């Protein structure tokens, strides 16, 4: 069953003269790891804000069409209810972390949802463990590295156990290995547990390792949506297509079929070797 259903959605901000979203159709279900990408200004951040109801509930403006999350119409559902279903993480964790310790940060959302203090402390413990933050529990967020801060931001959102996690360029300020760790954490700790993750991301060579689906927006519209390899191939010169995707299709043109589209150089090396082995037989 789809947990997000958007049909023919148009939106404009109170100040914008033209529609920022121009007829979006989109469905997503549990267990998907969706990478949302496209040029700056294409409307992807706006789209993300629809998914947790910040648009239109907080930003105002004009919304047309249907947007349902967990079967709730986002225009008619207060944001505090949507917040239970959709966790949101932004590019700059500093803007999202307010408290003096990691532990307090994680407890805050739970307190807001009105859990008993016993349940809060159980959930905080569980979350600290699950996100490998036990050793950092008494640290202030500003004492942490960018990657650790982003992990805390994700943990504090996921402590509330939403079905959907939406992240807006969570790795833009991280070094490559920290970025890879965050994207992997989402896969292993969130998507593998049957949740839906939608991540806005430009670093497609890293995202390709984990994505189950890629959605590309241009000028307020979704122009491509589907299996990562085919989707990326179809939007060359709009987004930066990872080199192994290009190589895969160049080999295909020469009649070399690898058994699967490779998600990383390691996988591609293995597939090329097994293709060579098969030919030697």
């Amino acid at each position, binding site marked *: 069953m789809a947990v997000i259903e958007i049909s023919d959605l148009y939106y404009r901000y109170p100040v914008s003269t033209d529609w920022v979203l121009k007829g979006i159709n989109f469905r997503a279900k549990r267990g998907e790891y969706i990478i949302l990408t*496209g*040029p*700056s*200004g294409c409307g992807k951040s706006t789209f993300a804000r629809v998914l947790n109801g910040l648009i239109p509930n907080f930003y105002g403006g004009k919304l047309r069409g249907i947007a349902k999350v967990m079967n709730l119409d986002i225009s008619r559902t207060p944001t505090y209810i949507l917040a239970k279903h959709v966790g949101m993480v932004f*590019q700059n964790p500093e803007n999202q972390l307010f408290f003096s310790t990691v532990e307090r940060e994680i407890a805050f959302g739970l307190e807001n949802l009105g859990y008993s203090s016993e349940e809060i402390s159980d959930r905080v413990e569980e979350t600290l463990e699950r996100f490998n933050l036990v050793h950092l529990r008494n640290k202030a967020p500003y004492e942490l*590295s*960018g990657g650790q801060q982003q992990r805390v931001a994700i943990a504090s959102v996921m402590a509330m156990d939403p079905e959907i996690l939406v992240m807006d*360029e969570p790795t*833009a*300020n991280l*070094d*490559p*290995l*920290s970025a*890879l760790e965050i994207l992997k954490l989402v896969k292993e700790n969130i998507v593998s547990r049957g949740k839906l993750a939608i991540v806005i991301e*430009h670093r497609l*060579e*890293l995202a390709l390792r984990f994505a189950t689906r890629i959605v590309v927006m241009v000028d307020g519209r979704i122009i491509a949506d589907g299996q990562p390899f085919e989707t990326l191939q179809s939007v060359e010169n*709009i*987004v*930066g297509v*990872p*080199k*192994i995707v*290009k*190589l895969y299709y*160049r*080999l295909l043109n*020469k009649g*070399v079929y690898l058994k699967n589209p490779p998600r990383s*150089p*390691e996988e*591609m*090396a293995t597939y*090329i*070797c097994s*293709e*060579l082995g098969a*030919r030697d037989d």
Partner: protein
Amino acid sequence: MIEVVDVYYEYADGTRALNGVSLRIGKGEIVAIMGENGAGKTTLVKHFNGLLKPTKGTVKINGIDTREKSVAELSKIVGIVFQNPDHQLFADTVEEEIKFSLKNFNFSEDVISSRIKWALKIMELEKYSRKSPYTLSVGERKRLAIASVLAYDPEIIVLDEPTAGQDWIQKEKISEIINLLKHMGKTIVIVTHDIEFVLERVNRIILMANGKIIADGKKREILSNIRILERARLIPPQIPHLSYLLYEKGVIDRRDILFLDELLRELEARL
């Protein structure tokens, strides 16, 4: 020309950020400085315009010891565009932002107005000239920060993480700008994590870790050395990484492949 000789730098809190760094960057070179966060990259480039002075060792720019000149004087030779444009922008309009340093450097009104026009044009910011920098997108603010440095025509330009958070189209634009600067004979130093970008655009790579230079050489030599990239906590570019793995498995004979077409030629011989 940049000459750094055995430089150590310690912040006031005792953190040692540079641990004996030496390098020379000649006129017209394009160099990338890479390494993980905290490796000392930004601390190093802040020495190039005298924002930081070495605790020990010397930094010379065109033969001038940075201890003997003010930041203002050195900035005329070395323009630095920092990672976060918001730390650099403060004027009410885009045009005034660019005008600020031009006035500081005492250019004539004629030169100021033509330089502003030129910088706005190459950074494609003309239509925003009267707008507040804060109404621009992050990518546009970054281009404005570059424009304000380009406008006063420094000989050496340092770009700190120019592609961070930029989409593919903007990265292509930044590439074009770097090309343009290269043709103008500028010396360009790029501090970056973006290894695919470096692969396409840069000739020489300096790798840093723990306040030291752990490798300095031609890009083919550095980017095909997967072990040294790992030591600098970098993820290798895809094609060199794949080529290295295929070389290890005995599929191809060359281990220093950087580009897709090179690898394809090697593979064609085998497939």
